[in-house]
């Protein structure tokens, strides 16, 4: 199916976050990580989420998947496909996550179960959401997806264990696993941070290509503005649990008048050794 058909109405958001608050209760008192955040994700776009560590960028996107820690309290609304993801019980949430809403994590070295073969882990995610598929059909789809993420020798990898693969290969496996059920939204939480620069570029190209092919919306969380510039259609700049600025990437990166965005851009080290000027 061409991606233009899958996307649907581009002007209507596929996922809407309204007034999201996330608070963690710690022994030292409550910490509010996300303070009334509102954001819209449109079909078929790549939305970059940029911000420093602790700005709440990861926690914001853990919330729709129900992955927040036990000591957290959430309020607000996350609408996705006519449902409020914050009000679903685990059982209903399990039908959404992995199927319509998938995630790629930061560290591919620890995101795969060390005791299960790659193939079994891929099969697990396909069998949970599409139990009607026969085993050979499921396996065929896994192998096909491994080819799509440009993993060399997919048949061999299928029968290997995670520790036999390099970091870049594992991240390809993680991406393949996330895409197996053709989700409408993919959340990528710093998927290239743990990889070296050449592999990082390859993975970014791959994500862009897959996003076009599958016509899904991608949320790309990163602290790297260069990655945002390369990849994202729109970008949201986060600081202290709030969105400071949202807009088309080139506008934000080139013409931003927002002081935090300007200081963030100024913080990028340059090869000539001169420092940008913060406003």
């Amino acid at each position, binding site marked *: 199916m061409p991606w233009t058909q899958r996307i649907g109405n581009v002007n209507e958001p596929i996922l809407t976050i309204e007034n999201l608050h996330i608070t963690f209760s710690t022994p030292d008192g409550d910490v509010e990580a996300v303070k009334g955040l509102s954001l819209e994700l449109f079909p078929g776009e790549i939305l970059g989420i940029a911000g420093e560590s602790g700005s709440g960028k990861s926690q914001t996107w853990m919330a729709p998947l129900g992955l927040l820690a036990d000591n957290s309290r959430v309020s607000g609304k996350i609408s996705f496909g006519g449902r409020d993801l914050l009000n679903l019980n*685990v059982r209903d949430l399990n039908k959404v996550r*992995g199927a319509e809403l998938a995630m790629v*994590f930061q560290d591919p070295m620890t*995101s795969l*179960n060390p005791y299960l073969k790659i193939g079994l882990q891929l099969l697990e995610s396909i069998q949970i959401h599409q139990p009607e598929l026969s085993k050979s059909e499921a396996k065929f789809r896994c192998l096909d997806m491994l080819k799509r993420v440009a993993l060399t020798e997919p*048949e061999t990898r299928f*029968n290997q264990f995670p520790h036999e693969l390099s970091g870049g290969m594992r991240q390809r496996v*993680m991406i393949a696993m996330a895409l197996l059920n053709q989700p409408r939204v993919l959340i990528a939480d710093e998927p290239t941070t743990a990889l070296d620069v050449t592999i990082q570029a390859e993975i970014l190209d791959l994500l862009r290509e897959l996003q076009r092919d599958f016509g899904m919306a991608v949320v790309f969380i990163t602290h790297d503005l260069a990655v945002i510039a390369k990849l994202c259609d729109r970008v949201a700049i986060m600081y202290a649990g709030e969105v400071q600025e949202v807009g088309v990437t080139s506008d934000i990166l080139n013409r931003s008048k927002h002081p935090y965005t300007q200081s963030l851009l100024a913080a990028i080290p340059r090869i000539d050794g001169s420092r940008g000027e913060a406003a």
Partner: protein
Amino acid sequence: MSLLRPTSTESALNKSAEVLQSRSLTQMAIQRFLRNRNAIIALWIVGILLTMAVCAPFFEWYTGYGKAFQDRNFYSGQPPNWEARHYFGTDQNGRDIFVRTIFGMRISLMVAMVAAIVALTVGILYGAISGLAGGRTDAIMMRILDLLISYPLTLIAVIALAYFGRNIFIVFAIIGLVEWQIMARVIRGQVLSLRNSEFVEAARAMGVPPLAILRRHIIPNVLGLAVVYMTLIIPEVILVESFLGYLGLGVQEPNTSLGVLISEGAARIEQKPWFTYGPGFFLVTLLLALNFVGDGLRDAVDPKDR
């Protein structure tokens, strides 16, 4: 989607399976264990002792155990005599000490295995539930464990024996029920760290239901550790049983255990020292070998070594 037919991938799979030498973590652990020479020698010794224990009736027949027992006036309390096939000598009642030692080892090993299985089952269940539940449930379960651990084992054993009578199965159960506590703690710690590990989080993000996460992602990662602790519990249990036997609280006549034999011998160590030599040698060898096997397994399973 690709145009490849499933059949062609199937055949490609079969072809690559022949070339491929993929090893799981378990296989790698076994390989590491096999390379550990001390552990392998210890494993052989345990194997030989185990075979001897299983074949105990053969030794009974070979040494003429019964015959000597009937003619007790002539045979009682004789020092080791290789020609008469009394390798460790005979006891007060004219019974061959070598045969008694083998039978005693049999009982000791049985006690240890039953106790280890009890400890493994209860420990894994308790530890896994506590670790998975977390929060208040976890705290309460751990305090109960603290309470149990603070009771001295000997006291519990004496009270239980006074209450239930001197039944060897009660001894099994008590020892197993005491030893599971450490196992439960170890398993709980492991489950707790696994619960928050990234691959479990990834599985949750994938929509895997909680029970499937437990079965497919947590238990396989805990089993190696559990087996290691089981091999380390076995020698400990043998020691505890021997200690109870030494206090006269263990196995009753005509059955015997290594601890009972040593305690009987200790009473006459000045006149007839060979009463303790055989059982003592077997006990030390068995414990040493079992500990070496356990240590070898622990080194093999330890993921830091990877």
